[in-house]
């Protein structure tokens, strides 16, 4: 069971908000989903490895550290800033 306090803590961890009504619905939904996924406890997973990738024979791939950006891309990125001054991204003080 996820308690009310757990939910408040999770909201902070996940950096998100829920309204009062949403929180009530959420508590009910989360508990019924967790109850459902708990059926996995019946699966026999002794000696089974965790699956960490979908295909076999995959290896880490890197590419040369070269600038492959198309021209003009920096402008479209700065254009997307919600708040800016000149080309600086504006945010609230972090500290």
């Amino acid at each position, binding site marked *: 069971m996820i308690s009310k306090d757990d939910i408040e803590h999770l909201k902070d961890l996940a950096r998100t*908000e829920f309204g009062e009504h949403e929180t009530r619905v959420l508590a009910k939904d989360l508990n019924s989903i967790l109850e459902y*996924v708990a059926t*996995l406890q019946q699966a026999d997973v002794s000696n089974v*490895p965790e699956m960490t990738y979908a295909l076999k024979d995959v290896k880490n*791939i890197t590419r040369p550290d070269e600038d492959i950006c198309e021209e003009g891309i920096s402008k479209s990125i700065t254009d997307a800033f919600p708040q800016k001054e000149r080309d600086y991204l504006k945010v*609230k003080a972090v500290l």
Partner: protein
Amino acid sequence: MTIVEFHNALKNKTISARAATSLYLDAAKKENKKLNAYLELFEEDAMGRAKEIDNRIASGEEPGILWGVPFAIKDNILISGKIASAASRILKNYVASYDAGVIKKLKAAGAIFLGRTNMDEFAMGSSTENSAYGPTRNPHNNEYVPGGSSGGSAVAVAANLAMAALGSDTGGSIRQPAAFCGAVGLKPTYGAVSRSGLIAMASSLDQIGPLAQSVEDAEIIFNIIKGNDQLDSTSVDSDIFSLKTAPQPVRVIGVPKEYFSEGLDSRINNTIKSVIKKLEKHYTIREISLPNTKHALPCYYIIVPAEVSSNMARFDGIRYGERADADNIFDVYKRSRGEGIGLEVRRRILLGTYVLSHGYYDAYYARAQKVRHLIKEDFKKAFDPKTGVDVILGPTSPTLPFKIGEKSEDPLAMYLSDIYTIPVNLAGIPALSVPYGTVLEDGTNFPIGVQLMAPHFEEKQLFDVGKQIEVL
């Protein structure tokens, strides 16, 4: 008009790219108020590109197979210079700064983009009701859902508002709406198609694929969009397919008994059984067992929220998207996400945060990853080259389309819509939904989807059997 029919008409100069594009744009403009399949039409761009295509043909160039083909694109696939909102408020004004890998390939192949299609927000949902821009409606009966999350793309194809479309499939989001609307939908092998420029939901499961009017069309699109892309390190080289240009013909089709258990609509059951009966003339049919099928859905609903909680962290109102005002940075994050992201997405973010938190990791996530291994092993055993089957066949969805609003208050009931499609994503294998027959409900003939599954990179096998089903 299918891609193949259009291509022949274009070659014979009995139709122009402009005529075809404006035909679809007009239909989309007329029908969209009712169906809400498109979030935006790119009328000017589409007509401009169609004109280019016509000019190239007029100058004597031989048209390629996708020249002038009008596509609908799901709103989570980036097209440079166009809004890509993933049907979320937080990205309502986000303009893509680059083309997705699949868009680059389609552009190079001469395709035309009619517009971006509605979806469940960030692809989380099975009905296209979780869109910040209103639900999409089933073209066969407007009171019913089209399935999801690629509902807009499925409706665009099924209602003739596009010749073909792209969607994305994390747990059935291409195949289930294809089944609900009567289109062909392909979820390619994990790694077969680049995910660069796809707004990520659950990265170990996401795949882009086509929705089309015929199996042949889906195959044509797949052959264009597949292959390695430097910008997606999970994408594999096309060589892996060319090594299989002469695969063994499909001989044995497996029918998993777990896909015909409790919860399957009896009318869908009868339809699928009649398909199997007819296929007996062409193939050996064998009953098989995928014993861990029952664990797939709970496994998925641990792994997906876990990956979602991580992937959604980037939507914080800082670098792009909508930002809410607050006194300090912490509250800017909380309020931007609280106001900009819909309930189902926030629910999954919270659930993911919980299952990954200290003390719960082993009980939930680690166990789910082990169960995922068991599910993959089920398929591996079923497809054993010596003793197994070539292709597996079953229903795509356990139910017919449901009414708008019917399941929106009950997330678990909604999740069950994907019970037959999810195991495929967990195992990373390819699967195809092909429409076959209809069932009468509420005065409407709703289409049924037959799902075919094959081993990794054996898409060709799916197309072969799919074409057979189309002519049964």
